């Protein structure tokens, strides 16, 4: 507490500069932040990480941002990947998070959990991030999720530069990143290359040395013609040690993923646009165990080699009609997903397994109407109908209905209310293929009813927010341990949630954010409540960032009691000159970040480490 008071006092001493040219530039930069053009208040309860926030946070990977989100805890998985777990749920729960780069949804067809593959994605080419929780707009397209994360790339006309960045950390990790962006006449491009060797803390168990070290490469390129088209290409490749593996005594193994996508957006007159996407992902697991890997088809196997791939093709057409106080958006989408099992061997022998349906076609139509009753009151009504048909000729028609009301009650009070009737469709890894549990092709989608409200009070430089919500799920897809597969739960699941936050801007350079959340449900397999504190400061040529993430204690689904977590990180940036910045960041300084139980040991997702970075701009 004393430390917190010290930080607040330090911050309080930093203000009241006269309106110099330098301050005018800062005000101008703030007013021109790109999120002002993309943030959609009617799309849900939104949290924005501006360019300035991400820079000061030294958010090098998506996980650096994800770990701060309310209602979620970042956890390590048995195979060394990371994922977000919704408050109270276990890693086996089905709460898909959607991640978009601009208008492209990153492919999560294989695992149904995009964060597993993209958590370590470098953010050097990203300008800002918007996170929509509870009741996302249907106009984002694709299948629905429980949370939607929109990553917006840097704008070439604002960059006009080539930047490079190199990092090393106290665990021996190395990262090299580059961004090149230019605008010429009506054309522009943005290119990003990101290479990294990720080292993590190793753990020792009775039977194994657990490592999740790995290497990752990433490429992104966008070419645009103003108001005409955008062409985007992205590719990643990642290979890392298998950590706990699928058994209890892993002695060797890795996970190897590759994916590539192309996304074309063509803009026409009168708010009409067409988007075409292709993506391909490949996923390979090699696991060797000294005792046995629990494989459902054949017992007592000690080695698994498997490789799967997914191809996704998508076409979207969208049109907006703006008439006075009314805006109507109409859209249609076709999506084809083709899943392939290229290899499935145990102890070196090909195994024939009756896998689930490998092809899936989805036909979607949606509409959203925003109507301003007057300048202070907006009503949003949305509907989406999705028709699914798989290789087994099993079909279903799903729907989303959503209503929202947003009001500026006066100069200080704002109110948001959303009601949504939605669904979650089972993923390939639940219906079609899994290396270590039985698949269930008969799974049905689950139905979700969501009601959330948020009150926001702003006065002077301070904003208070308070929100409540209730979520009811019928036919939920849950993992049944005795059957070793996902099944539809016959009982209705429900939970309530509350959150509160405060943001105070001391001045243009200095601000503090504090947030608290809690969920109310019957059983908890991950932290039930949590809080965060973020302090952004600038003193002369230095930027400082303090972050404290708290997550409550919990009992894991395996019955292991896990202590509460305090993840404290501190960052400092020194602007040496116009071209060069030196950055220092210490993560999980207290070594008390929230942990996950894997193979009998407690594993922290965030390693305790110090990271040194130098950035040079040409």
């Amino acid at each position, binding site marked *: 507490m004393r430390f917190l008071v010290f930080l607040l006092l330090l911050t309080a001493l930093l203000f009241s500069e006269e309106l110099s040219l330098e301050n005018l530039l800062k005000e101008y930069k703030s007013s021109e932040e790109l*999120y002002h053009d993309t943030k959609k208040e*009617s799309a849900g309860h939104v949290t924005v990480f501006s360019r300035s926030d991400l820079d000061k946070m030294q958010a090098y990977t998506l996980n650096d941002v994800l770990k701060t989100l309310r209602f979620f805890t970042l956890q390590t998985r048995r195979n060394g990947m990371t994922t977000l777990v919704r408050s109270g749920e276990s890693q086996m729960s089905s709460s898909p998070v959607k991640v978009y780069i601009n208008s492209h949804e990153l492919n999560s067809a294989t695992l149904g959990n995009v964060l597993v593959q993209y958590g370590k994605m470098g953010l050097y080419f990203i300008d800002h991030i918007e996170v929509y929780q509870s009741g996302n707009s249907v106009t984002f397209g694709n299948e629905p999720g429980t949370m939607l994360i929109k990553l917006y790339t840097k704008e070439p006309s604002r*960059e006009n530069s080539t930047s490079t960045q190199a990092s090393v950390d106290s665990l021996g990790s190395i990262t090299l990143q580059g961004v090149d962006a230019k605008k010429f006449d009506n054309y522009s491009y943005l290119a990003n290359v990101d290479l990294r060797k990720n080292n993590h803390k190793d753990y020792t168990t009775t039977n194994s040395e657990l490592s999740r070290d790995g290497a990752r490469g990433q490429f992104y390129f966008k070419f645009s013609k103003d108001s005409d088209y955008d062409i985007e290409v992205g590719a990643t490749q990642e290979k890392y040690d298998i950590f706990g593996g699928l058994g209890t005594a892993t002695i060797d193994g890795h996970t190897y993923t590759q994916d590539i996508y192309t996304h074309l957006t063509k803009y026409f007159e009168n708010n009409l646009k067409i988007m075409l996407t292709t993506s391909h992902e490949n996923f390979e697991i090699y696991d060797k165990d000294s005792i046995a890997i629990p494989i459902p088809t054949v017992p007592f196997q000690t080695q698994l080699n498997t490789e799967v791939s997914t191809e996704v093709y998508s076409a979207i057409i969208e049109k907006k009609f703006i008439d006075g106080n009314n805006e109507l958006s109409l859209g249609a989408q076709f999506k084809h997903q083709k899943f392939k099992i290229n290899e499935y061997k145990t102890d070196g022998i090909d195994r024939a397994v009756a896998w689930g349906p490998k092809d899936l076609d989805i036909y979607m139509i949606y509409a959203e109407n*925003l109507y*301003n009753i007057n300048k202070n009151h*907006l009503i949003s009504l949305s509907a989406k109908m999705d028709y699914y048909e798989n290789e087994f000729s099993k079909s279903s028609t799903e729907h989303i209905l959503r209503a929202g009301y947003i009001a500026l009650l006066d100069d200080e009070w704002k109110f948001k209310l959303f009601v949504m009737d939605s669904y979650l469709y089972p993923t390939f890894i639940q219906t079609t293929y899994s290396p270590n549990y039985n698949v269930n092709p008969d799974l049905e989608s689950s139905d979700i009813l969501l009601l959330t409200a948020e009150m926001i009070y*702003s006065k002077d430089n301070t904003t208070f927010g308070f929100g409540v919500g209730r979520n009811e799920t019928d036919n939920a897809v849950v993992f049944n341990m005795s059957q070793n597969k996902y099944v539809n739960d016959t009982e209705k699941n429900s939970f309530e949630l509350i959150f509160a936050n405060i943001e105070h801007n001391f001045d243009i350079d200095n601000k503090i954010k504090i947030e608290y959340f809690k969920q109310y449900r019957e059983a908890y397999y991950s932290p039930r409540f949590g809080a965060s504190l973020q302090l952004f400061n600038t003193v002369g040529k230095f930027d400082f960032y303090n972050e404290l993430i708290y997550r409550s204690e919990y009992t894991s689904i395996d019955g292991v009691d896990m202590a509460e977590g305090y993840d404290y990180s501190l960052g400092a940036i020194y602007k040496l000159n116009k071209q060069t910045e030196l950055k220092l960041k210490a993560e999980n300084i207290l070594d008390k970040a929230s942990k996950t139980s894997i193979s009998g040991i407690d594993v922290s997702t965030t390693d305790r480490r110090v990271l040194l970075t130098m950035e040079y701009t040409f």
Partner: protein
Amino acid sequence: MKTVSILFFLTIALFASDNKDIMRAQILEKIISNISINETVTVWSDNKELLAELKKSTHIITSNDCAKATVIILENKEKIHDDACKNKPVFVLEYNLLKELPKSFGAFFWKKGRPNIVIIEPRIESQNISVSKELKVYVEEKVW
């Protein structure tokens, strides 16, 4: 392209966005009022919105005719047609214009996501332009 919801419900952001031209004009006003040349500083710009905002200033004089101006704020080099204007000191709004226009002595531009100011020392010296202490921090020796 902004949605109705954005227009109506981001009052703070909208306020900031509406201030774009005003703030840009304030910054340019501050720059121009901190330079001095051998004659009275009279400003003309090819950006009409910007010129309209600058006209509201009590600190600088503006003109609707570039021929009568003594300093030009330029966004698009194709907009200078009059020979009488081509040899006047120019402050540009794109960094690349510094390379293309020998008479340009400074720029206000975006780079790496930030607004920047740069004043080119040899060019202010050759055109007998002096800058105040507040602008000295933006003076550089050459165009990169």
